C-alpha cells in the first residue's frame, strides 16, 4: 500500500514536472527539428544558477526568471552558432561537452563565491521569496490521496506552478508545431536539403528551435531547484540521458509524450526500487545497491526502446527523427 502511495506521489512530484518540462524542451530540439542535443542538463543547470544567484543577491523573482532565460538563450546561441552546420553526431558531442563544461565551471573552486563550488547553493538562500507568494497554508495539506507541505520545498505551491508551466509549454508546443514555423522545422527534420531548396534559412530555424528548447530547459531547472537545491553534480550527463529516455519512452514528436514519459519513468523507478527491496532479499541486494540496480534497468530500457520501439508509447513511426 505504501508502495502505491509512493508511486502516486512521485507521479505528480515537482521533480516529475521539471523533467517533463526539460523533455518538452528536448522535444523541440529532437522531436520537431531532429537536433541531437545531449546537453539539456547544461541548460537546466544554467537556468538554476541564473535564478538562484539573482534571487540570492536580492533580485525579484521575475528578474531571476529573466536572467535564467537569458543565460540559456545565450548558451544556445553560442552553442548553436558553430555546430548547427555540422553533422548530427558532432552536435551531440559538442553539446555534451559544453554541458559538462558548465558543470565543471559551476563546481570549480575559483567560482566559490558565485556558485558555491561543488556544494552548490543551499535551498534556503533563494527559495524564500517564491515561498512567500504561496496561497497555500504553511503546513501539511492532504488532497485526495496526496499529502504535501503547503508552501515549503516540495510543496503544493511548487506543484501547481510546475504543472501549470508544463501545461503552458504543452499548449505552446501544440500551437507552434501546427504553425507554418513548426512545419518548416518538421521539414528540416525530414529532409534538410529539400527545405533549403525552398529558400528557407535552415540554420536560422535550427537556431530558433535550439534556443526555445534550451529556454524551456532553463525553466525546468528553476522548478527543479525550487524543489531541492542547486547542485552542479545532480545535472551531469546521466540527467540528460534520463531526459532522453523519458522522451523516447513517451514518444518523441508527440504532444503528451514528454509528460507521459516523465510520469512513467519516475513512477516506475520508484516501483522498481520498492518491488526489488520487497522481493529480493537484503543479502543479495542491499539498500545501497538498489539505486544502481534500478538505473542499470533504465539504461537497458533506453537500449530496448531505441531498438524495438523508437517511436515510444504515443509516437508515430513516420514522425521519427533518426535520419542520419
Amino acid at each position, binding site marked *: 500500500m505504501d508502495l502505491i502511495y509512493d508511486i502516486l506521489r512521485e507521479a505528480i512530484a515537482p521533480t516529475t514536472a521539471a523533467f517533463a518540462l526539460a523533455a518538452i524542451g528536448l522535444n523541440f530540439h529532437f522531436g520537431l527539428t531532429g537536433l*541531437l542535443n*545531449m546537453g539539456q542538463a547544461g541548460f537546466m543547470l544554467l537556468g538554476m544558477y541564473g535564478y538562484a544567484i539573482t534571487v540570492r543577491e536580492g533580485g525579484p523573482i521575475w528578474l531571476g526568471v529573466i536572467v535564467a532565460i537569458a543565460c540559456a538563450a545565450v548558451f544556445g546561441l*553560442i552553442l548553436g*552558432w*558553430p*555546430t548547427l*552546420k*555540422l*553533422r*548530427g*553526431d*558532432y552536435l*551531440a*558531442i*559538442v553539446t*555534451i*561537452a*559544453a554541458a*559538462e*563544461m558548465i558543470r*565543471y*565551471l559551476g*563546481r*570549480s*573552486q*575559483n*567560482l*566559490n*563565491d*558565485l*556558485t558555491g563550488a*561543488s556544494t552548490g547553493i543551499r535551498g534556503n538562500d533563494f527559495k524564500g521569496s517564491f515561498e512567500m507568494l504561496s496561497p497555500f497554508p504553511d503546513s501539511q495539506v492532504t488532497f485526495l490521496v496526496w499529502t504535501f507541505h503547503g508552501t515549503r520545498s516540495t510543496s503544493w505551491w511548487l506543484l501547481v506552478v510546475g504543472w501549470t508551466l508544463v501545461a503552458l509549454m504543452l499548449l505552446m508546443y501544440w500551437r507552434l508545431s501546427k504553425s507554418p514555423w513548426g512545419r518548416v522545422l518538421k521539414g528540416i527534420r525530414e529532409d534538410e536539403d529539400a527545405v533549403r531548396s525552398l529558400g528557407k534559412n535552415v540554420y536560422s530555424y535550427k537556431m530558433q528551435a535550439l534556443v526555445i528548447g534550451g529556454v524551456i530547459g532553463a525553466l525546468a531547472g528553476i522548478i527543479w531547484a525550487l524543489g531541492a537545491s542547486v547542485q552542479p553534480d545532480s545535472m551531469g550527463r*546521466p540527467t540528460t*540521458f534520463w531526459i*532522453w*529516455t523519458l522522451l*523516447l519512452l513517451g514518444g518523441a514528436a508527440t504532444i503528451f509524450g514528454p509528460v507521459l514519459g516523465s510520469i512513467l519513468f519516475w513512477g516506475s523507478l520508484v516501483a522498481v526500487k520498492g518491488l526489488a527491496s520487497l522481493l529480493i532479499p537484503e*543479502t*543479495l*541486494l542491499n539498500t*545501497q545497491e538498489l*539505486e*544502481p*540496480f534500478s*538505473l*542499470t534497468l*533504465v*539504461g*537497458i*530500457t*533506453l*537500449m*530496448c*526502446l*531505441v*531498438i524495438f520501439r*523508437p517511436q515510444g508509447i504515443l509516437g508515430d513511426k513516420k514522425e521519427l527523427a*533518426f*535520419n*542520419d
Partner: protein
Amino acid sequence: MTKRIDRRAIVRALIVFVVAALAVFAVSTIGSTAMADTPDAATAVAQTSAIHADAETTEAEVTVDDTAADAPGTNRIAQNVFNGLVFGLLLALASVGLSLIYGTTGLSNFAHGEQVSLGAMLAYFFATQQPVSLPLLPWEFVIGWPLWLAAIAAIVVAGGTGWLQDRFLWSKLRKRGVKMVQQMIVSIGLSLALLNLLQWWIGPDRLRVSIAIEERRQVGPIQLGDTTAVSIAISIAVLLAVAYFLLRTRLGRATRAVSDNPALAAASGIKVDAIIRLVWIMAASLAALGGILMALYDSGTKFDVGAKLLLLMFAAVTLGGLGQPFGALVGSLVIGVVVETSTLWLGPDLKYATALAILILVLLVRPQGILGRAERVG
C-alpha cells in the same frame, strides 16, 4: 582537398573563443575573492581535497604531484608537461580503439568510457586481497592474483565483452539496418547500464588496484616513479604494436580498407563483419589496458573513471581526425599535455574543462581534425 582553412571559420572561432574567455573572466573576477584568500594553487587544491574527501579522483592525484613538484630541483612546468605526455599516452590506448570503431562502423561509441572503467574494475576484482562478490550472488570470495596475472585476465575478459557486444548487439543492429544516430543512442543506453552495473558490482568507493607505494626518483628536471616508467614502456610498446598491425599486416591493411570504404572492401573479398568484430575485441582490450594503467598511474580508481575520460577521448579523437587511429594518438598527446599544463594557471578542477574547450574550438576551425581529410561534415 584544400590545405587552406576557411577564413570565416577562423573568425567565427575567434569570436566564440573571445566571448567565452570574456565570460569566464568576468565570472571569475566576480567570484575571485575566494582565490585572493588563498595565496597559491597548491594550497587551494589541498583545501579542495580536504573539504571534499570524495572529490574527483584526479584532484587528489594532482595534489600529490604539486607537493612533489615543490621538491628542490624539480621544474614544475617540465613536470606538468611530462605528466601530460604520460596521461596522453594512457589516454591514447583508449582513444585509438574509439577511433578504430568509428572508422570501421561509423559509430560514436558513448559506452567506450565504461570499457575503460571495466578494465580497471576487473583488474581490481582479480587482484585485490579484499573479499569480492558478483551481483545478485550471495557468496564472497578472495581471488588475490598477482597484478600481472590480474591485468592479463582483465584484458582478456574485457576483450571478451567486446566480442560479446559485437556478436549479440552491434552486428545485429547493423544487419537490421538501424540508423547510426539510433545506434549512438543505444550506446548511450549501454553506457548508462554499464556505469550503474559497475557501481552496483564494485561499489562507489575509490579503490587501489595495487597496494605498493610508488617510489619517485629524480630524473633531470622531473620526478618519475617506477610504476609510471613501466606504464610508459607498456603503452608505447602496445601503441607501436597497433601501428605495426595497421600498417604492415594483411589484417591491418584490411582494417584500413574497411575504414576507407566498407562496400569496396567487401567487394574485394574482405570479410567486413569479421574485421569489425576484430576491431571491437581490440578496442575493448586496449581500453581495458588503458584503464588498468591509468589506475596504477593515479594510484587509485573508481567505477566512473572512464565516464570522466570519455569526453577527453572524444576530444582527442576529434582533434586528430575522426576515424584516424594515428590522429587519435596525436590528439591524445595534445589533450594530455593541455590538461596537465592548464593546472599551472587554472584550478585543477577545471583541467578537464580546458580539453572540452579545445574540442569545441577544433570543431569550429577544422572539423575534420589535424590528420583528417577535408570533407563536408554538415
